């Protein structure tokens, strides 16, 4: 297990310094200009991965330490070091297929790292015994990529499910919470609908309501904005911000939409090829000098990221 805690030194002494995940790739990587060849092999793959973690002044609620994860020959996470600050809305952004969803599944203990560690509020998720993991999961609200509603239940029952599962609340109390959350996401009168009768956007909003009913300390959103039109995306972003202001907690939002990032992110981590390119407070990252970060955050076609 590689433990590269230095980057996540909460004192922030490591500010802008260029430290690769394991310090190996940079020394072996002679600096040269120009973008690497598409899908370039070897160490130049990580040319732009300074791994710089700009200090946030807040301790990390979630930490990835040297995480490797492969599916067969598909090496998805390759020494990922990432810290997500407590009490803020963090965004993980990166091209599709880089393993953003895989990250979320590591945080909630649905996947285990091949190597490295994932720490949530000081506890190592991969080494938690089942019973404690179950307890831990009550702290999470997760919105999966397509809402992941239960197809056999209507929306109301879907949203009420976590309450019935984890609390002793009476049906009236449940109805009160569920109706409030459903109104909040704009589904006040869709309770009787079945998930397959809904549009993708409505399913997402219902999934959002379901992830919030237990007042979780950590909320994870997997691409809340994909498949939505720009107006709905903006509304959803507003909603996330409002709910965060009201309830507090650590929010982690995965997206590849820069507009959403500009609207809601307080902290941004740019993920590419299984590692962090750069991370830090949103405002600083939007001013980053890093060619990849600049390309990605401005959505230009010119730059290190090609079609691959």
């Amino acid at each position, binding site marked *: 297990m590689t433990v590269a805690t230095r980057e996540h030194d909460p004192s922030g002494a490591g500010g802008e310094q260029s430290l690769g995940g394991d310090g190996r790739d940079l020394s072996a990587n002679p600096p040269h200009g120009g973008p690497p060849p598409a899908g370039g092999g070897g160490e130049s793959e990580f040319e732009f991965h300074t791994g710089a973690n700009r200090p946030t002044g807040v301790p990390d609620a979630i930490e990835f330490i040297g995480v490797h994860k492969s599916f067969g020959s598909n090496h998805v996470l390759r020494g990922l070091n990432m810290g997500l600050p407590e009490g803020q809305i963090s965004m993980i952004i990166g091209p599709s297929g880089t393993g953003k969803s895989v990250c979320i599944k590591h945080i909630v203990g*649905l996947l285990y790292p091949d190597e490295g560690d994932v720490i949530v509020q000081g506890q190592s998720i991969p080494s938690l015994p089942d019973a404690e993991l179950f307890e831990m999961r009550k702290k999470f609200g997760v919105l*999966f990529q*397509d809402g*992941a509603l*239960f197809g056999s239940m209507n929306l109301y029952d879907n949203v009420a499910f976590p309450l019935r599962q984890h609390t002793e609340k009476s049906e009236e109390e449940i109805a009160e919470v569920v109706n409030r959350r459903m109104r909040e996401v704009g589904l006040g009168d869709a309770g009787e609908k079945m998930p397959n009768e809904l549009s993708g956007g409505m399913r997402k909003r219902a999934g959002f309501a379901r992830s919030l009913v237990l007042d979780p300390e950590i909320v994870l959103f997997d691409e809340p904005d994909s498949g939505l039109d720009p107006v709905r995306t903006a509304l959803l972003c507003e909603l996330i911000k409002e709910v965060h202001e009201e309830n507090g907690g650590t929010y982690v939002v995965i997206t590849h939409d820069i507009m959403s990032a500009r609207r809601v992110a307080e902290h941004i981590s740019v993920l590419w090829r299984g590692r962090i390119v750069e991370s830090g407070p949103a405002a600083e990252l939007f001013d980053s000098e890093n060619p990849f970060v600049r390309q990605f955050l401005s959505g230009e076609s010119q730059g290190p990221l090609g079609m691959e």
Partner: protein
Amino acid sequence: MVRNAAERAFLPTRNLLEEIGDMMILTGRTITSALRPPYPYGGEFVSQFLFALRLCWFPLLISTVAICYAAPGLQAANFLTIFGALDRLGGIFVLAAIREIGPNVTAIVLAGVAGTAITADLGARKIREELDALQVLGVDPVKNLVVPRFLALMLVTGLFNVYAILFGLFGGVLAELVNGQPLGPFWDTLFANASTTDLWGSALKTTIFGAIIAIVCCYKGMTASGGAEGVGRAVNQAVVVTFLAIFSFDYVYTQMLLATHPNILVIK
């Protein structure tokens, strides 16, 4: 290079062995989870049981009557006429219908009809990330989804075996009638050869068949990946693996039953 080629050649075998191991683990977890409280799976158990019953009764009826009429019925009758021993057909039906055809046809029909439905259902839920969501919400998929299907399929397959045997014997009766034989000798030789070992042996075997179908089909569904195509692939593999497992188990079981109960080897 050589190592790569070797690895590629052995990869399917290794994957298969790994899968078998995973299924064994799933079986163990299912059994412990079924026994250990709480027991939240009652409703799902009843609905799965009724579902399998509703789906399977008619295909099973047609299959057993037809195959028992054709194979041990017409074919064996044709053979027995040489010796003028058509009354022996009853004895053959103990061997054929009760010990083998009943259980195996039941297993084939249940795997094909109910098992594939289970794989498709769980596979679709896996692809839609419903299973992940369940787990995050603190619901154990093994206890809430696999256990009820496991118990329901064991019970349904065990019960359907009786039903299959009855309709199988009906196929034999048809064959006797078609050959213009009285039914008395058929029943005589049938009951002379049938023992309680045959009955419980058959029932136990099919119950285990049900367990095999449930585990393989749940496993394949819950590990589906790769979108809608992946669900199709999972269903296909579920059927293939179930049949392989059932027939291999049938061989081992038959051999063991004959070895431990030699009295059923004696043809009366």
